[in-house]
């Protein structure tokens, strides 16, 4: 029992150490820049305690969390899906245009948009999957290239084509895809939240994608930890040869993991297209790379990713206040985020090594010192 307690404390120590390290080193940076770190942090916390800011944070955490799960599916299988970035942007673009063109009753319309997004995301990550299993191309390299092809090629082309179509029908030049009618927008959760709190002001709307994100998180947890498929996936991630001997085809697992990861990635951009009603010409970028960070910090678990997404969203949103109060440059949070990731991966590596060493010690003790 003692070892279990130690194991848990080791597991929690790593992310905490990472946070402390990031806070201390960002404080040093702030001090060097002539700002008062304590004032900056208290400004951020004060700001975050407002209801409207909390809504902003949840709206930001939702896509971050989904993106984190997309990356985590790959990580569990030892696959680096660096391509979440390109997959979610491309998926959001196509889903928004389809959603803008078709007319359906409300729940079906929303479901169609989500489905199109997942399909496009899966198809695009599937390209990397197929290249890996048929040609042996590393998914790291192929997804980096596919990201660039999507972002500076396909998306530019799509926006141009669909914007042009709109310019003919409408009198005003539009920036983005065809607007999605009301029936195709996921309802917001304001009324639900307002049951427990006061009225949410300042036109803030809590995205309905939060519900989808929770479903994705629960499904991910159950599928990976409670199903045969999840077992196979984790097994081939841990040791592909042993898994193959156990009857798990590594190629099929690679392809399935890439498709699943891409399908989830396809949902990342939905928060934005539902809230703005179209795919804008300058969409929010970087959520895919941030998702990798979220998955790393959350150690590929659903709960961990949720906490990590909230931390990142808090930093993103509450940094806005720094500029207003003038207590520091808001850009400090980007440095903080990167430091958290670096510190976290180093801390995980160190605790992992301590754990391995103790396991080896325990094993040799159990064998009566034969190995030692």
């Amino acid at each position, binding site marked *: 029992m003692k070892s279990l307690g130690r194991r848990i404390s080791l597991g929690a120590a790593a992310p905490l150490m990472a946070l402390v390290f990031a806070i201390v080193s960002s404080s040093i940076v702030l001090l060097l820049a002539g700002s008062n770190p304590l004032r900056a942090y208290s400004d951020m916390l004060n700001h975050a305690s407002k209801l409207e800011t909390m809504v902003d944070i949840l709206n930001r955490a939702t896509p971050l969390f989904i993106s984190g799960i997309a990356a985590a599916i790959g990580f569990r299988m030892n696959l680096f899906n660096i391509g979440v970035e390109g997959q979610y942007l491309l998926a959001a673009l196509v889903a928004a245009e389809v959603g803008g063109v078709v007319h359906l009753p409300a729940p079906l319309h929303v479901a169609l948009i989500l489905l199109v997004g997942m399909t496009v995301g899966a198809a695009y990550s599937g390209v990397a999957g197929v*290249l890996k299993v048929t040609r*042996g191309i590393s998914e790291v390299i192929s997804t980096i290239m596919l990201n660039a*092809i999507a972002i500076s090629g396909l998306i530019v082309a799509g926006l141009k084509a669909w914007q042009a179509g709109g310019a003919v029908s409408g009198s005003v030049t539009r920036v983005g895809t065809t607007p999605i009618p009301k029936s195709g927008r996921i309802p917001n959760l304001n009324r639900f939240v307002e049951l427990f709190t006061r009225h949410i002001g300042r036109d803030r709307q809590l995205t309905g994608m939060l519900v989808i994100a929770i479903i994705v998180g629960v499904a991910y947890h159950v599928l990976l930890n409670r199903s045969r498929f999840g077992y196979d996936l984790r097994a081939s991630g841990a040791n592909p040869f042993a898994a193959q001997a156990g009857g798990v085809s590594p190629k099929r697992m690679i392809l399935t993991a890439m498709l699943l990861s891409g399908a989830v990635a396809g949902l990342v951009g939905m928060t934005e297209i539902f809230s703005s009603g179209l795919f804008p010409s300058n969409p929010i970028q970087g959520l895919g790379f941030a998702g990798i960070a979220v998955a790393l910090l959350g150690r590929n678990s659903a709960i961990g990713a949720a906490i990590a997404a909230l931390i990142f969203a808090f930093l993103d949103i509450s940094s806005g206040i720094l500029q207003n109060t003038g207590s520091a*440059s808001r850009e400090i949070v980007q440095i903080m985020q990167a430091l958290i*990731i*670096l510190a976290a991966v180093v801390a995980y590596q160190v605790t992992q090594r301590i754990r391995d060493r103790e396991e080896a010690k325990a094993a040799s003790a159990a064998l009566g010192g034969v190995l030692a």
Partner: protein
Amino acid sequence: MIVVNYLKNMPVWARWMLYAIVGVIVLNIVQGFDDTSLLTAQGTTRAMLRWGVPILLAGLGGLFAERSGVVNIGLEGMMVLGTWFGAWGALQFGAWWGLFFGALGGAMGGLLHAVATVQFGVDHVISGVAINILGPGTARFLSSEIFNKKFKSQGGSITQSPRVPTVGRFTFPFLAGGNLFGWKTPDILGWFVKKHWFFISDITGIVRGLVSNMSWVTVFALAMIPFSAWLLWRTRFGLRLRISGERPGAGEAQGINIYFYKYVGVIVSGALAGLAGAFIASQELSGVYKEGETTGRGFIGLAALIFGNWRPLGIFGGAMLFGYPFALKLQDLDGKASHALLLVTTIAMFAVMVWALLRRNASDTVLAAVFGIAALAWYLLAKTPPDWWAQILPYVIVVVVLIFFTKRLRPPAADGQVYRKGEV
């Protein structure tokens, strides 16, 4: 088959030169169809070199890291650090210091990557992703603290620096008529160009475009090609660095300090990526530090590294090939040249098809034929390709190269593996 054997026995530089000459002949013939001369114009090749240099430097940076066994997808982040520190150093201390600080900024990113991957054994891709987030974040923070305060009156802001001074230029003596100790040498290549002989004038024009009026950074980058080949393959240092990337365990058994060579490899890698960034921020390309101005060229450098099969000369070939479409787009106002490029793509794909056919590889033959027909159809149907085509061409080329040649590429054997001392 005799031809194939002959090619195999050629020295590497001669083979690449032959490929280049065949490429120029193809470009020369093809541009006639589209009634343009831009494909082999001097302006195009000069722009190609200017755009290719950062890719070349980043690719060579990747070479040093990956030859020592550390995958560096953080090149992009290190390059961003290079753009910022390059611009700052140039503004603060002068143009040459800009290059120095750019390299230093990149090297700091490299050091961080080395500490994470070599010291702590963190996965290389993960650390690289973190550095790609850290680089732009740091640049933005520093801009808000320095460009937006001290240099605000000169036009600095959070996303941009004031105009950056730049180092001088250099024209090769004799070849392109540069000055040698104050004496103006004859312009031999220029003489050929003026004769307008078919092909000969074209190829001399291209070479003259490359060797005249180039930045000192370009001279340095070009000199780095033979230098890194010599350093990595002809010296004891290089042998030890490469064994760290091939079989670190074997190196360790010989008493080599593998960690040291990995550190050096990754730090040099960061310095070269940083220099590439400083070059982008110098007047050769943009003349300012601007947020997002690297536009993924660190990743293109990685692509050049793979295209070049982890070898200096191949990286140079990749860098020029990837710089070419960008350069062409700058000159190509009526879209004729870009259109002609589609025909070049078609020819290249059919060449791959023939190559696959000779090796009796049915699936590759069919795939290459499909790509070739698609490119041909595009050439025939479209009047000019859309402007985003040039943007993604490098990435498309890499994917195609990977599809057909992955099995022939040979990365360092222990590339990307975490090495711990004493654990073989």
